[in-house]
């Protein structure tokens, strides 16, 4: 592996300072959570931060105190530290109880070994798994100026929101967090900021090289999930091309706010189909103030694929998305 320096900051401020210091010296820097994504890139010499080469400095966040837990916050919601492991998320009773969609998403990731090491922040900030990028092609995501998938092997690529890069956002937690309307706390040189998870991710036509708003010296500290106003029923439904150990071909995170058997509002966010977690407002609206029936779920599925624009080899994702949404909505509504 390329020689790099590992730094072990004990606090968020120190982590930011170390990153800034490295950048000032012209060295490339990456934050490390579990390293399950990052180390694969470093080994293959694929640039992690686009345009700045393979990292010279890794800022290991595992020694930062106090950001590896799920805690109830003053507003009645949950604050989830960015370094919380995926295993801990999946097993957390408060999540399982009230925000099942997030626990299910965490459980669906890869394998026990990866969930033990992998963190919430690392999962949300993982780089694309497009095979061109991962195999050393100098495409937009590596800091280059072309996309190889558009006219190439695009079976697993975007059917919504693509161009000029056609990646799909790889994170399973991201759709669940957006469906729960989470806010993200971000730390950087200018101090902390908090933004909606919806505004955290960026489409390639806004910033082709990055998947989110983070600068090279900014890190994701925590996710804050608001207290729901009513009863919540939620579900994460993931289709893979084998039973385990791989990213979603298509997934749906569904959160229904219920009043008895009537759905008041719904949030439906798709994974595996777009460069960001993809909300489908037209489908969500159909569920407002409705009883969830199989017929309605079918219409919601149809509404979810409005505006899909498949590439040469991924049209199969359109009907798949429709059925994934239909089933996810029914499964969420069936939760007692």
């Amino acid at each position, binding site marked *: *592996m*390329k*020689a*790099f*320096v*590992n730094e*072990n900051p004990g606090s968020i401020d120190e982590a930011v300072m170390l990153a800034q210091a490295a950048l000032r010296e*012209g*060295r*490339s820097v990456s934050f*490390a959570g*579990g*390293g*399950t994504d990052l*180390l*694969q890139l470093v*080994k*293959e*010499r694929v*640039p992690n931060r686009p345009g700045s*080469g*393979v990292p*010279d400095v*890794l800022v*290991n966040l*595992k020694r930062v105190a106090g950001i590896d837990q799920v805690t109830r916050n003053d507003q009645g919601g949950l604050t989830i530290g960015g370094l919380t492991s995926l*295993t801990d998320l999946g097993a957390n009773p408060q999540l399982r109880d009230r925000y099942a969609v997030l626990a299910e998403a965490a459980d669906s990731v*890869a*394998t*026990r*070994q*990866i969930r*033990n*090491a992998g963190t919430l922040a690392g999962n949300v900030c993982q780089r694309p*798994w*497009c*095979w061109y990028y*991962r*195999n*050393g092609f100098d495409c937009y995501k590596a800091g280059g100026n072309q996309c190889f998938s558009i006219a190439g*092997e695009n*079976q*697993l690529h975007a059917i919504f929101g693509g161009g000029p890069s056609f990646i799909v956002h*790889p994170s399973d937690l991201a759709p669940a967090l957006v469906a729960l309307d989470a806010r993200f706390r971000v730390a950087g040189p200018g101090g902390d900021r908090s933004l909606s998870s919806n505004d955290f991710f960026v489409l390639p036509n806004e910033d082709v090289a990055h998947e989110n708003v983070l600068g090279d010296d900014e890190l994701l500290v925590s996710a804050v999930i608001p207290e729901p106003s009513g009863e919540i029923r939620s579900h994460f439904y993931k289709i893979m*091309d*084998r*039973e*385990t*150990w*791989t*990213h979603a071909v298509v997934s749906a995170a569904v959160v229904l706010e219920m009043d008895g058997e009537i759905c008041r509002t719904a949030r439906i966010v798709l994974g595996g189909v777009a460069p960001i977690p993809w909300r489908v407002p037209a489908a969500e609206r159909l569920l407002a103030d409705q009883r969830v029936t199989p017929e309605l779920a079918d219409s919601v599925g149809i509404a979810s694929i409005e505006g899909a624009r498949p590439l040469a080899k991924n049209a199969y994702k359109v009907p798949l998305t429709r059925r994934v949404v239909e089933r996810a909505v029914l499964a969420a509504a069936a939760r007692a």
Partner: protein
Amino acid sequence: MDEFREPDAADSAPENGDTSRSGSARQEGHTSEFDVSRRDFIGGTGATIVAANAMPLGAQEAAPSSGNDLAETEVPRSRIAITVNGARHQVDVEDRWTLNELLRDHLELTGSKLGCNRGECGACTVLVDGEPVYSCSTLAVWADGRSILTVEGLGEGGAISRLQQAFIEHNAPQCGFCTSGQLMSATALLERNANPTANEVREALAGNLCRCSNYNAIVEAVLAATETGGA
């Protein structure tokens, strides 16, 4: 998308996996108690190994986009304290060593294997503070202060563990390459759940491939090692 990787130059380039391991033998100032035997081993197993890796680091590391790599003399190192199979070690490690490199190449614990070196096979599974992780996908420096259990540490007083015995009785290993990883995942499972169902065993071992495809025998063996013996 990982499974559709196309073969590419990076896979056969010398730096993929091997450079840092050979680099360790060149390192002066490596003060681990295991270093001498490691060096003797390299010296003793023939000139070809040394020659194959004798290229100067600068040349080996001159892969694309590595313009600002550090020179060999500056390869960053750290001193860590780890417990491995109950024994405490102070070791000087290169920051870039994976935990697998430390265990296999420097502590001479070759029980955990290196298959894919990318989180896709499970042969390298070890327990860190009791939980299975891929030792190829975490760094040795990150294990500072942690307790590691490898297959060499299973069983007590020279005897193999009940699970290992069950592996033998049920012919769970065929070629045996995945076996240590399977054992570590199953050991952790039985620690948290003394009586798993067959499905729970399959789920817990989902992160360990067996290229011989001996899955049924492996699951049988784990069930036989449960408290109820799988009854």
